[in-house]
């Protein structure tokens, strides 16, 4: 039983197709991160869920209730969704307390109690009388979260809520927000273009690209078994090396990997190789040469050139340091099956 479910959502703005046949479901209490490059349609999906845009095709059900479909468009105020905007959108003429209480109905005392509870939750108790412009960016965003959560929405939608904040603040705030959402058991859709943020916030991640949903999976799965080349390249550092299917496994420039794949012997494929799938050792007769060395704090990232002039990237812990032009031996040691794709034409 899912709390949010979309079926075949499509939306075009003029000639451009912003969202193309997107279907997804969100389970109760789950945080789904919707990830993709800017302009991929992720915000349009969120705005259709909120009711600010009407889909051209497809249906949306929130909490088992159909809110959008052919001939049906429930207005935003009747959908019971909470929304946190990129630019927080606090009402500039109302103080913090009135902002948080804006969506509450009922007796003044009860509303006041709920406002207090929400401000306590976002650790801003004592700030009710402040005006929005007197708060820092992080505080403003926390008020926006409190305001969206106050009426107990069935689902919370967050539209790149941290993108206007500086890097440090973004990291602390996302810890805080995830803790609060998990504490309340809120079902949430979190839109972002930052994959690190998506990996941190999302229980599952939906990756969109040019209006299409490419894959919806747990973070580990996206990383280990990307459904498309786009995802393989979008998430983490990736390189592809050509391989041929043989009886013994996959034959590559770096030797044969004992991995059986569902393709006839003799097929050419591209294998996804990530920096941590490779091992480096000093070897004057080695099969590769160091091109560049980037120190990343905990480890080194090396760009190495193979005999075929193909370049790969590998990670080594910070004990080993190889100067550029050093000959090294590169070995494929993934410890897990590698993802593969049919070669590009």
């Amino acid at each position: 039983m899912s709390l949010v479910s979309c079926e075949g959502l499509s939306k075009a703005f003029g000639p451009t197709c912003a969202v193309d046949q997107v279907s997804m479901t969100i389970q109760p209490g789950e945080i789904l991160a919707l990830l993709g490059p800017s302009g991929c349609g992720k915000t349009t999906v969120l705005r259709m869920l909120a009711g600010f845009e009407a889909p051209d095709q497809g249906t949306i059900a929130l909490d088992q209730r159909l809110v959008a479909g052919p001939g049906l468009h429930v207005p935003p105020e009747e959908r019971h969704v909470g929304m946190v905007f990129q630019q927080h959108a606090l009402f500039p003429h109302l103080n913090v307390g009135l902002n948080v209480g804006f969506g509450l109905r009922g007796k003044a005392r009860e509303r006041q109690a709920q406002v207090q509870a929400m401000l306590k939750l976002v650790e801003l108790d004592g700030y009710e009388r402040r005006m929005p412009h007197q708060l820092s960016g992080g505080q403003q965003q926390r008020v926006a979260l409190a305001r969206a959560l106050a009426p107990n929405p069935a689902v919370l939608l967050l539209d790149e809520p941290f993108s206007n904040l500086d890097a440090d603040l973004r990291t602390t705030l996302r810890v805080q927000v995830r803790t609060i959402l998990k504490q309340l058991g809120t079902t949430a859709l979190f839109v972002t273009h930052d994959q690190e943020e998506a990996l941190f916030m999302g229980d599952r991640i939906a990756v969109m690209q040019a209006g299409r949903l490419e894959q919806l999976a747990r973070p580990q799965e996206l990383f280990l078994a990307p459904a498309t080349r786009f995802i393989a390249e979008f998430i983490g550092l990736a390189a592809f090396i050509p391989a041929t299917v043989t009886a013994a496994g996959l034959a590559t420039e770096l030797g044969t990997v004992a991995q059986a794949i569902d393709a006839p012997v003799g097929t050419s494929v591209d294998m996804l190789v990530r920096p941590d799938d490779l091992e480096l050792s000093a070897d004057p007769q080695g099969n590769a040469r160091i091109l560049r060395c980037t120190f990343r704090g905990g480890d080194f990232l090396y760009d190495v050139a193979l005999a075929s002039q193909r370049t790969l990237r590998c990670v080594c812990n910070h004990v080993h340091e190889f100067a550029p032009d050093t000959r090294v031996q590169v070995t494929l040691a993934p410890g897990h099956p590698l993802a593969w794709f049919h070669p590009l034409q």
Partner: protein
Amino acid sequence: MNQAKLSPIRQQRQRSFTLRQRLPHWSTLLLWAGALLVMAGLLLPTVYLLIRAFETSEAALQIFMRPRTWVIIGNTTGLALAVTAVSALIAVPIAWLTVRSDLPWRRFWAVVTPLPLVIPSYVGAYLYISALGPRGALQQLLEGLFGITRLPSIYGFTGALFALTLMCYPYMLLSVRAALMRMDPSLEEASRSLGHNATTTFWRVVLPALRPALGAGGLLVALYTLRDFGAVAIMRFDTFTRVIYLQYSSFDRSQAAFFALLLIGLTLVLVTFEAQTRGAARYAHASGAVARPPTIIALGRWRWPAFVFCALIVSLSLVLPLTILIYWLVRGLLAGEQMGNLGSAVWNSLLASGGGALVTVLAALPLAVLVVRRPGRFTALIEQMAYSAFALPGIAVALALVFFGISYARGLYQTFAMLLFAYAILFLPQAFGALRTSLLQIHPGLEESARSLGYRPPQVFLRVTAPLMRPGLLAGASLVFLTAMKELPATLLLAPLGFRSLATEIWSAVSEAFFARAAAPALLIVLLSSVPMALLSLRERRGMS
């Protein structure tokens, strides 16, 4: 050869360095001296009126206690409030319709509705009187059709309210429109997602967010009404400006001076009141840039009523006056109205406005340089004073200068110089604003690098700052030029004997009900006033795309 060219600058630099240990550079002193002189000039009318009132404090108190005085105070504030309120009722719907709705011909209305700004109040009032007044065009039309010989009188409060509202509402419209276009659409979406429908959202989110714009626009409208002389004089409604002029004409000096002081007091109260109420809530968006254009709302069955509303306002405020203007022009031409005087009036207008623009920009320059380049508590005061001159009614300033001239500066009384001085006081805020903006856009680093390359402050100003400021200087000067062209009360009171400008020509023709004779100068003034309006709407359209 290069060496020879370079060396003098170096020597100068060393010399000025040693001098600077002892006293500021002469150019700095000149700057401050200029600024203080301008400030003194700015304060002169008000201070002089104050001193006069104190000297005759007993008489002043007597005047203050008269019921007649209170009737005038009531008339003036009542008219200002009414014009502001009705302007809001016109401006807010039009602003919302042209920015946020699917009103038919939306872009057309957006361009046309602010245009009544180009009609000066005395021209507008003259056109309404000649259209709707006794023996006016409407009455003659009705007489021909139905034999009606009398219409309800347009003179008095009704006429003043009617004319001023239709000419002032664009001030509010422009400021509300700008605020609506700047408004972050996610504010409304936040309200909708929190369970409020479109109507509640308008009252609880949109309208409060427009409050600063309504305040600023309302201030402009109310100030315009308080200071306006032409419309109330022609509509014969006794507000301060008209009474002051009548008393001046009948040589009742002390009462006129005291009324002028009361009027200045009234405008200052208004300005402070607006600043106070704005106080606590500053509405600046923390994020600044708005990512999305405003969303358009379908009006449904209200589409055509909204269209009719816009059409009605535009026909009353623009089509009617312009039609009447052309009607009188044609009628005058057919009746052989003489246009001979027009040439000298145009020349005088150009001369006075050009001189006024030059003097005003020169006066504003030291103030702007000090305010922008040496921010501090004192220069902040200078800035406030420069803007507060906006609250000074032309007739009050003119009257103060008349009395000052008679008592202390006989040689200057009724000279061209005195008129230019009045213009400089009245239009200083406009020139100051333009110069300040252009100076703010010049990075101080440019001036500093010129200094470090060996130029002294006055050279830096001439070779770096002034060329970069040229657009601002031109904008300020043309703004003052066009406003001075329309100015009526100060020109009437202060111009040399026999000086006839376009504005005074219209005034004297209308005072004697020679409507046809006023048409040609009125048309010229309207055309000239259209120039900055065209620039403004061009800029707004560029801002939107």
